[in-house]
């Protein structure tokens, strides 16, 4: 699914979190929103996911206006920085949640849900942890379960907020490759937020550098490295 963002702005009271920004995201791309805290990257991601609503501007999904769609209608697979797993449910129940939450007509049978959950557990390479509770998992395992849970609803896009932010350096490297593989397998348009320029440059097809609610530059990692648009981009992406 390709996404267009047209003159999108967001104010919290008198605070401008997002100046009018525009951006076109091609279908199937893996995009990084890169910037320091307060740059508006998470706000932009949350608007795409339907968790915040813009003060002005439009969002188009595959060419049709999605600005007024509710969060439930958007079918965006959203992964939070701290995963927000349901503590009182097993891994299996966590992943099955989105399917079971559907209206009866659209809900798959329990057998079908079981098949899909097991396929996702295989995809994240944790086939045997379905019966465990989140408190019994490591940080990296939690992140992958959160990813599988987001994929279970057959999302139209994948949105990840600092997906590696709460992990130590070694696990972070491993999971980066994991996300790349899952993106390549599913072909989903994937947008992730990060403040780590190395992570953005290594993983993304296209990097969107943001600062103070504005988009400073959009480009392939190599382009941004070679030709930074301004001093901010230069200093922020300097390795």
């Amino acid at each position, binding site marked *: 699914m390709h996404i267009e963002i047209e003159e999108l702005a967001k104010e919290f009271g008198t605070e401008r979190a997002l100046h009018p920004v525009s951006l076109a995201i091609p279908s199937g791309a893996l995009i990084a929103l890169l910037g320091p805290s307060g740059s508006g990257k998470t706000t932009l991601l949350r608007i795409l996911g339907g968790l915040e609503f813009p003060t002005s501007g439009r969002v188009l999904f595959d060419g049709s206006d999605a600005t007024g769609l509710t969060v439930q209608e958007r079918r965006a697979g959203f992964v939070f920085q701290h995963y927000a797993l349901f503590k009182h449910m097993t891994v299996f129940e966590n992943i099955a949640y989105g399917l079971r939450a559907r209206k009866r007509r659209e809900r798959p049978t329990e057998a079908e849900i079981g098949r899909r959950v097991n396929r996702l557990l295989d995809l994240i390479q944790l086939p045997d942890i379905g019966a465990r509770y*989140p408190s019994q998992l490591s940080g990296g395992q939690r992140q992958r379960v959160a990813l599988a849970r*987001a994929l279970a609803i057959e999302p139209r896009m994948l949105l990840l907020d600092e997906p590696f932010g709460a992990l130590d350096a070694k696990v972070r490297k491993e999971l980066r490759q994991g996300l790349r593989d899952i993106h390549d397998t599913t072909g989903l348009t994937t947008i992730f937020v990060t403040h780590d320029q190395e992570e953005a440059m290594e993983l993304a097809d296209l990097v969107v550098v943001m600062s103070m609610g504005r988009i400073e530059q959009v480009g392939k990692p190599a382009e941004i490295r070679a030709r930074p648009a301004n001093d901010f981009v230069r200093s922020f992406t300097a390795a």
Partner: protein
Amino acid sequence: MRASLLRSPSPLPGFGLSFGIMMAILSIVVLLPLSALLGRGLMIGPADLWDMVNSRRIWSALELSFRAALIASVFNLVFGIVLAWVLVRYRFWGRKLVDAAVDLPFALPTAVAGISLTALYAPNGVFGQALAPLGIKVAYTELGIWMALIFIGLPFVVRTVQPVIEELDREVEEVSATLGARRTYTLRRVVLPTLAPAALTGFALALARSVGEYGSVIFIAGNIPNLTEIAPLLIVIRLEEYNYDAAAAIGIAMLLISFAMLLAINLIQIWSRRRIGLV
């Protein structure tokens, strides 16, 4: 530093003194009297105890005490969760006043609550007159006992659930929405199970309090034997007849049933806390 088998060493002084004061007061005020009650029971013997409790009037009273406490506590469980939610999550005029007023039943003496509820719900009271055309009688019926127990048990669930709602992780609710769940589904499947252990604690406290409640109930109950006579009142009546053995028998029966109930609730709670990985 003296260390003993029972205590690991600590550099801080005052263990002997503080432990001594604690045990002395605990023994005189709580442990010795309760032992005297249980000792009395042992002296009477289980067979005679059973004979003394096994009368229709006492069974009716015990049943009434526990039934009314259960009904009032279930009401307070549901209302307490909703009220805690409203007080934490919504902003409206008078919220702080109501938040403070929730503790009124803790602060208002039970006898005061008792006569005041009776004045309201008696046939010539404000609520009593309003309800009479509907054919509803509250004062001097079991309904009146429910009202009194709802009043005194109201704060418990609110106060145990409130801090849990304050610390709820909003992202968990958000993630549920992104997975396509309607708000009611999120509340039912995500929020409610998280509140359950705390709500259950409040429920147990309210239940324990209402089972033994006396002051607020006796005024509004009418105290008709077999109908609206609660177990604590029966103890008072036996004591006034100087029938200490019979009073002790009812007291022991109440203690045993209360502890069995609290034990059951504790077990449910350990089970539910273990499920969400808190233990």
